[in-house]
């Protein structure tokens, strides 16, 4: 009897985990705060998309290229970024993005808020890990 009940519980857990898309949640989380690392990379030195992608990969922040284009365009539209065209020997010209002064000030604010967020999240994580 107990076995049967136990199985049932397991089943229901399995069901809910299926309806909750963990992969999607992770990608949403990454996408949501992707602006910040992108600004950090460009803030370090003017870069084009391939540079940004490489840096993100190094930082283990895997995103597909497709996500970057709308993001960069939006940041440019809001005046955080600007770009210049750079000729390429092998292919079409590339856009090289750099921070505007407004972009730098936004980045500073983001950095600050990230740091506070980081400490608070870290304390929560530590508590959670201790609890387990």
């Amino acid at each position, binding site marked *: 009897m107990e076995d049967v009940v136990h199985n049932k519980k397991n089943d229901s857990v399995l069901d809910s985990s299926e309806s909750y898309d963990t992969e999607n949640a992770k990608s949403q989380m990454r996408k949501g705060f992707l602006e910040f690392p992108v600004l950090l990379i460009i803030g370090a030195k003017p870069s084009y998309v391939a540079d940004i992608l490489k840096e993100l990969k190094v930082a283990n922040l895997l*995103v*597909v*290229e*497709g*996500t970057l284009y*709308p993001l960069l365009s939006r940041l440019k539209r809001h005046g955080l970024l600007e770009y210049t065209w750079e000729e390429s020997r092998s*292919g*079409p010209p*590339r*856009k090289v993005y750099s921070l505007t002064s407004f972009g730098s000030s936004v980045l500073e604010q983001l950095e600050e808020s990230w740091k506070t967020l980081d400490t608070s999240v870290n304390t929560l994580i530590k508590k959670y890990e201790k609890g387990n």
Partner: protein
Amino acid sequence: MKKVINITLGGVVFAIEEDAFTALSSYIEAIKKSLSGNADRNEVVIDVEIAIAEKLVARKCNEKKAVTVSDVEAVTLEMGNPSDFKDENENNKKQTEEIHSDSGTKKRLYRDGENTVLAGVASGIAQYFDIDPVIVRLVFVFATLINGFGILAYIILWLVVPEAKTTQQKFEMRGEQLTLKEIKEQVKKNLENIQNTNYEPVKGLWAKIRKVLITIFDIVGRLLRGIFGFFRYFFGLGLILLGALGLAGTVSVFSVALLSGTIIHQGEVQATLEIIRSSTLGVITLLSAFFVTVIPLFVCILAGLSMLAKRNHFTIAKSVSLGVIWFSALTFFATLLIIQAEQIVLELEAQGYDHGGHSIHVHSDPFRITVSEAPADESGLFPSDITESQFGNQYLESSLSEYFLRQSEFSWQTSDTGYRFCTLENLDTNETLFPLSVWVFCSEYDMDNGVLKALSGSSGPVKVFYPNENSFYDVRNFSHVHPRDGSLYSKDIQRIFSPEVQERIRIFDVTELQKKNEIFARDNIARWLKIKDAVLRVRLKVFSKHIAEILLYN
């Protein structure tokens, strides 16, 4: 061997294989869709094209190698799913719109070429009704086992229903909206299929049979579609012509029926129409009859147009509203006709029409009345100022004169310009009923510079008969007897006339009568000449005016 298309992407020229081009363009289209509502849409699309171009260049695709499906696949994998291009921080207003516009995607019946036992008919139907294809297959098998209908239906469907070949058609088949991931998946699937067909040759007996059947059906299907396409034009044109002519005819018939009411000059139809038109209810009946005839003709035209334009002109709303109007018009017409039928029949009978047959019975003879009321010829030869007559009836005297003018032994024409007159005198003054005994004086005159000249004529006693003394004086019905000339004259007079009349004849003085006739003649000829002259003058006037006008305009 593959067809290659030249394209530019991010300013770089590429030679791209046809299937790779299809995959790439549907990928870019999907990205565009996913970016709908994004303010930077055009810029991002350009960025993406440049990025793809860069990647293809990196794969050495702009040198001697054409872009293949696998190149496109690799590049798109690197770029990410079209859904990844959705910027989460953009406002979501547009997304709901997108859903709305996409919900209009219609589900259509196609054969499912990806999921087949034979030709994908069953799986296509299953897709259409959202059921398991196995069930449909079982139904086909079952129907075949019972009466062979299943195989027939399958064959017909195979020939008639097209296979879903393009991505768009495949989505229409499934009734799905063209979402981006799905396009990507479809592209992947297509690639797999291409590879499958390349690397896995048909194996097994069933596969061989299937291949042969598919080839045969493909040819037959194309042939049938071709024939149908050929006849479609004639049939469609015929339908349009039929509808248009019918419509024109109906409109004219009904407008005539409603406005003037003279469609056919047949008494009964005419009378029925008159009765119907005279009441408001009747007019409504006619109008509903009009709709009853016009709507099917309209449908004919629409069907013809649909056939010609290869486009269905029958939307559900149109069909339903036409159907409702037609049916209600029919009901209206039938009901009103039944209500009015009795009244119409009654009125028709009252007007003298027998509704039972087509013959028309006229109960009274209109001719007799008309003729009896019409006066005898008053104008012309006889002056109308004679009011009292020796015959007690002016018309009788006129008729008698007319009669004798027609009798060649009394009056005859010798000259073109001559005018003839006959004058009578009643020999029996007490008698005004037939047979009448009269003295006739007839003469032909000519007017020469105002002087009357007698040309020819005769004079003598006559007895005149008429079949019915009470009836009116039809000149054709008169008859007469007159004494022969010469030695027989006196004998004949005795035989024909009564003693009193004989006495009168003996002492009769013809000069009185001659004078009377001459006076008549002079008056009438003068009058006639005046009229002639007047007419001539008017003619001359009109003619000269006409000439003047012609001269003026020339």
